[in-house]
């Protein structure tokens, strides 16, 4: 199969440039949001909370908060990245270029992974001002963050192709992703939920993501790490397949 490295790089650099152009939105806003969560939940409420699974409450919520921001930012960023060219018409250039699904995704997803890592670094740096914590498996954490960023960049990409209005663009992150993340054990361990909610909570795929990231931080998790990894990779594969089909059929891209 043919792969045009220069084209992929051009898309990657453009996506990165777009992020830096909107640095206020993409950097300052997560810092502010995360700081507020740490002040309220970490410092004020966290001081009155018991440690969960041997982890102090303030530190316990870090992976969940990181996941909350990562999912939201990655999804909306990627969806915006493909929706805007469709909206303004500049997509003509991508469609008329000698560029296939592989280069497009390499550019978009590669940029999303980079942005995910930068975002995580900013949030973790912000967290050090409020709580003490240590990451048990930092390399695995970085890998897992990139994996999640890649998956949700693909998901956002699908969203940006599906959406035909700004309202639809915002509705999935707002009405599905954020609630599921909140309910997915960001601020608590789903093991502590009373029955039957502990079982129901496992129907929430994001619970596996939060749990997976928490494992990489503290070595404790609500569900086996293999399950979290498998589910994330499975989601990545499903999204990639959907996008490949979209490109083959031209759905919402080529009339």
């Amino acid at each position: 199969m043919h792969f045009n490295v220069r084209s992929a790089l051009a898309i990657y650099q453009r996506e990165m440039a777009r992020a830096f152009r909107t640095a206020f939105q993409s950097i300052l806003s997560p810092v502010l949001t995360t700081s507020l969560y740490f002040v309220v939940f970490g410092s004020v409420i966290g001081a009155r909370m018991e440690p969960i699974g041997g982890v102090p409450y303030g530190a316990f919520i870090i992976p969940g908060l990181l996941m909350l921001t990562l999912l939201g930012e990655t999804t909306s960023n990627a969806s915006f990245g493909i929706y805007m060219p469709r909206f303004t018409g500049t997509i003509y250039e991508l469609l008329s270029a000698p560029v296939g699904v592989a280069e497009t995704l390499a550019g978009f997803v590669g940029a999303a992974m980079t942005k995910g890592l930068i975002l995580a670094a900013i949030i973790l740096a912000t967290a050090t001002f409020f709580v003490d914590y240590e990451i048990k498996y930092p390399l695995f954490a970085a890998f897992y963050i990139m994996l999640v960023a890649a998956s949700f960049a693909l998901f956002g990409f699908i969203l940006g192709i599906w959406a035909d209005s700004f309202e639809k663009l915002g509705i999935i992150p707002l009405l599905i992703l954020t609630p599921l993340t909140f309910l997915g054990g960001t601020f608590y361990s789903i093991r502590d939920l009373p029955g039957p909610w502990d079982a129901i909570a496992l129907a929430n795929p994001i619970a596996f993501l939060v749990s997976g990231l928490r494992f990489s931080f503290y070595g404790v998790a609500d569900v086996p790490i293999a399950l979290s990894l498998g589910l994330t990779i499975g989601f990545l594969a499903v999204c990639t397949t959907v996008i490949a089909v979209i490109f083959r059929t031209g759905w919402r891209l080529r009339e």
Partner: protein
Amino acid sequence: MSEPILSIRGLTKTYANGPRALDNVDLDIRKGEIFALLGPNGAGKTTLIGAVCGLVRPSGGTMHAFGHDLARDWRRARARIGLVPQELSTDMFETVRRAVAYSQGLFGKPHDPARIEEILRSLSLWDKRDAQIRALSGGMKRRVLIAKALAHDPELLFLDEPTAGVDVELRKDMWQQIAALKQRGVTIILTTHYIEEAEEMADRVGIIQGGRILMVDEKSAMMERLGTTEAVIDLAAPLAALPPAIAGFPVELAEGGTRLVYRGGNGQGGGRAQVADLTQTLAREGIVYTSIDIHDSSLEDIFVGLLGHNQAEAA
């Protein structure tokens, strides 16, 4: 004729919830020519361009560019094709230079700042190289789109309504730019509904309406075949009938014999010569005329006549 740079056979496009936008289109484009696709709004010009450039999925037919099948070998073909769209679709917040560099990379070319400078200078955009595109005027934005389309040095360039919404001065300027591209060996296909534009620029003209190509020909041949000269000669005194001396000319009497109307010629000056001949004959015959009004038919007359004929046929 050498192998066409672009060859289209039986191209058909039916939109999901619309009419047939392209109906069995056959078209061959020659290397190095400027081809004007002329037709009213909604004729299928943009759909035709979209089908070649990958924006529109054809419902049927085949297309070959540079000998590559566009359905299968699209990567190699598209790397050599450029497109300037009709809409001023630009990345508003990007700077001119970066936008052009992006296009260069996207089409798989190595970053070449010298080439970008050359392109921007040739389009009088160098002074604006670091300006955000949103700050530019409409004409400047159009040039940015051209610069982007040229960034990968395409051999075949599509210009969809290059002068739509552009004032007269800029239009002349755009024509010069297009002529300069032709000089460099770029094959150009432009769509327009300004007949003046096709008349000014094109080597060949294709007339399209309702998704069908009505006629393709050399502009000069089209003028010669369908062009006419009309001369209206007002006479000092009315004539009851055509005198035998001028009966051989394609003339008729009008306005109760006070006017002589000539319709003939070949759109290439033949008519004017014949009118000169006619006036000399009139003078010899002692027929006094008070005024002569000569008008050569333009591509516009041909176009309007052809479309009108086609519509009458369809009705």
